[in-house]
């Protein structure tokens, strides 16, 4: 849940990047980190295994600027995508304001994508959230690879409700900020509605 501090005039929101193992969640955050001015970001924390797989979470705090005199901060988290880290994924979803689902566009990862969306839905329900009601966007990542499915095919399985969707290549950064902006926008508009 966002934290609104009238005393220090700050609003903090939490965004979680979800998706199957190796789909590129950590790479998304790394790109955002690299491209953000030093004064607008904090340290990026990665709790990872020796082989760079996310173990607990990545964390990147962004302080992008002010809206109507309120400092607006976004805390970006990734979950560990590997199936057996489910307990950790549940913890990271606590207090989430918006979710980015990062799909791996490669044909052979389709089953893993589908399983991960289902897992997201279930874990959100456990926390008292409904995936169809919270700010949510989908990113089709790894569009640079040869063995990928078409966006139509991906959409049919992964985005039946037509939330905002983006094609991306997280390694080059294509689509990364578009995705982030879209979920941030949904969150702030949700706040506006006073949810």
């Amino acid at each position, binding site marked *: *849940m966002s*934290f609104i501090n*009238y005393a220090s005039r700050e609003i903090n929101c939490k965004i979680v990047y979800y998706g199957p193992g190796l789909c590129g969640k950590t790479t998304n955050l790394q790109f955002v980190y690299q491209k953000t001015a030093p004064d607008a970001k904090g340290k990026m924390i990665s709790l990872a295994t020796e082989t760079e797989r996310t173990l607990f979470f990545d964390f990147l705090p962004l302080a992008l600027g002010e*809206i109507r005199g*309120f400092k607006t901060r976004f805390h970006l988290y990734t979950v560990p995508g590997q199936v057996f880290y489910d307990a950790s994924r549940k913890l990271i979803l606590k207090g989430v304001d918006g979710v980015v689902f990062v799909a791996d566009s490669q044909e052979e990862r389709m089953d893993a994508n589908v399983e991960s969306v289902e897992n997201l839905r279930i874990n959100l329900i456990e926390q008292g959230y409904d995936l169809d009601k919270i700010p949510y966007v989908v990113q089709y990542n790894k569009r640079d690879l040869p063995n990928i499915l078409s966006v139509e095919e991906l959409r049919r399985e992964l985005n039946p409700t037509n939330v905002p969707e983006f094609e991306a290549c997280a390694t080059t950064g294509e689509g990364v900020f578009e995705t982030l902006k879209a979920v941030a926008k949904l969150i702030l508009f949700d706040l*506006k509605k*006073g949810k």
Partner: protein
Amino acid sequence: MANPQLIMYDEEFKQINAVIEKLLREANAKVIFLVDKNGQLITGCGETERFDTTSLASLTAGNIAATGGLAKLIGEKEFSILFHEGEKDNLHISIVAGRVILVVLFDTRSSLGLVRLRVKKSSEELSAIFGRLMQKSEEKEKSGDSEFPFAEITDDDIDNLFS
């Protein structure tokens, strides 16, 4: 929803800061932080500028979440106090009012016993303040009396954030 939104107002913010500043003195601590269970820093006092407070807040919340998960596995509700002992500095972490995390960093000028004792007293005061705070935001929500600044927010406002 799962957790009602945490909203902080001037009056309670001052009261909270007064409590932790008193705790800082009485416990002979170096730094004190209050962190929301979701990892957002609420406030801090003492030598805060020496620390990366944002990272500290996020990791503390992750720590509490992970040990909370462990607690459930063994049939406990949660571990309400955690203690990490270092060579010089120690961390005393406790849960206040079920949803806020109080972090006390201290060294050999203090002791675990003293910190424990003082934390206990301050926790009661903080619980009372957070209780009032929750009530206040609920009332404000019900009466629709929110000074929320975002009612007028536009697409451009958001685009400007990222430019």
